[in-house]
């Protein structure tokens, strides 16, 4: 049984079908990449899996339990955590308090939550910033804080929504290393990413969507050779490079 099983989810906004019959599955400890051009429906899919949107059709199963109709906080309690593409720090709270909110997911005790938060802050190399308010962080650290908060909830899966977008190359490399370490902790990851280099170096498998539909699935090596993918997605990159 896969850890996460998505069966033919569909989301319509008025006449627009944002996600059309998307299925995917993710096993324990795996890293699955979800890619596609802008507006392909990646974030909408994320929102359905994490409970922010209700799928119009189809089901999401986590460890065999149906997630449809559960609230985001209930889904988080089960062990599925997410980050946001547009980062959502608690700006007036300190970095430590931000992470503590996540840590309280598994405990009611202040000292335990505090301890857990400090441990994760250290894991992410942000110990010098733990008293800084989240609103004062740079983009790179905000992205990192987003991961720290998700990690503090003690999840079995983390859904990372473009955790590397807007980062400089060195920062991206650091983040890739972090994601690897998280994966080594036995946490499965579902990555939505635009930066191809990131997906290619991290993902065990990749699902490509275009106009809300899945157009390809496979290992990174197969995906780069896939005709449909090149037309829909990689083709754009080539044009970008020439331009």
């Amino acid at each position, binding site marked *: 049984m896969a850890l996460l099983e998505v069966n033919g989810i569909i989301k319509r906004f008025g006449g627009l079908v944002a996600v059309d019959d998307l299925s995917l599955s993710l096993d324990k400890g795996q890293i699955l990449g979800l890619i596609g051009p802008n507006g392909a429906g990646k974030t909408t899919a994320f929102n359905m899996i994490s409970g922010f949107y209700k799928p119009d059709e189809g089901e999401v199963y986590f460890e065999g339990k149906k997630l449809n109709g559960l609230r*985001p*906080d209930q889904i988080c309690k089960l062990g599925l955590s997410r980050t*946001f593409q547009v980062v959502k720090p*608690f700006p007036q709270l300190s970095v430590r*308090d931000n992470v503590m*909110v996540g840590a309280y997911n598994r405990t009611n005790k*202040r000292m335990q*939550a505090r301890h857990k938060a400090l441990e994760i802050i250290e894991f992410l190399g942000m110990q010098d910033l733990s008293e800084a308010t989240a609103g004062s962080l740079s983009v790179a650290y905000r992205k990192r804080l987003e991961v720290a908060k998700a990690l*503090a909830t003690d999840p079995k899966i983390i859904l990372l929504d473009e955790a590397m977008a807007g980062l400089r190359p060195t920062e991206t490399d650091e983040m890739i290393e972090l994601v690897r370490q998280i994966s080594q902790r036995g946490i499965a990851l579902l990555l939505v990413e635009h930066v191809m280099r990131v997906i290619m170096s991290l993902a065990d498998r990749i699902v490509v969507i275009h106009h809300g539909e899945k157009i390809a699935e496979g290992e990174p090596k197969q995906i780069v050779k896939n005709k449909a993918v090149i037309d829909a997605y990689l083709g754009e990159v080539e044009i970008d490079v020439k331009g």
Partner: protein
Amino acid sequence: MTTDTRAAKSNGSFHNWLKDIFLDWDRTQMMISIFLLGLLALAPLFIDSTYYLGIIILTTIYAFIGISWNIVAGFSGQLLIAHIIFLAIGAYTTIVLFNNFLISPWVGILIAGLVAALCGVVVAFITLRYGLKVDYFALFTIALMVALRTLFLKWKYVGGAVGMWFRLTDPSFDKMIFADKPPYLYIGIGLVLIGLLIQYRIYRSKMGKYFLAIREDDDAASALGVNTSLYKALAVIIGAAMAGVGGGFYVMYVTFIEPPQVFNLGLNVEIVMAGPIIGGLGSLAGPVVGALLNKPFAEIMRGLLAGGRSGSSLIVYGSFLILTIMFMPRGVTGVLHTIYRRIINRFYPEETGDS
């Protein structure tokens, strides 16, 4: 020599105790609040005027109501504008229980808290059921206040438009009726101390962190496992219960209540909102610091400008509030925090100033 070492030791632990408190901004804020309350407690030694003592007693009531609103609006960030509803309900409950059922106000104000909490449940339920966000929630509470004013004006059992006088009897501790002012002052201070303790305990707990997370970004909170509906409701209910208790004591002190007096946005601004906003909304010292500045200022303006055109004191008071918000968006406590950080960084650069 043994005495010396012991002295040094106890001196050292006293020093550590001080460090424990004053290197922690939350605890420092508690100390500021308690120190200010201590000053108020000394007031009867120096002030004989019942007029001035009356202002000080009302200041404690403002501080307590301010704390209750700070938990809802300051911590959880919900714009519960017409919070005075709960004060009014608590006041009416206490006076009806005393006049009609001879229930001691000591018990009455606790029941008032319960009744106000139940009203809080209703408000929270309607808000969440219909998904009223920020500004709609604010409008809803104001509309509710207007509706309740009309209801109470027509409701004969609670005196209708005539209002209700406290059935005066001989002074007695059981009935919370005293011949002079100081006992009221000490009850008021006691209430504020309890309020401060509740506020501090909430702030440092899981619930408090969840309130702050909801205020900052409720989608993000929800993604981290916070049941946002539950915690929003809890904040409203706790705030309502405290305001109900405060309302009970308020009516014991002013001895009279009528609908236009308590279902009133003007009083609402003065008794509920001004204190925490001047003091620093969402901070621990805000409500007490704010009440100490707010109530005497409002009263002095009223005294100075009473002979002039009616309403001129309100213009000055309103301008004062606007200027405060413009120049001290985080209130007096925000300014104090900045100074505090500088002092800590200077003398204890190793310490963080938080815990």
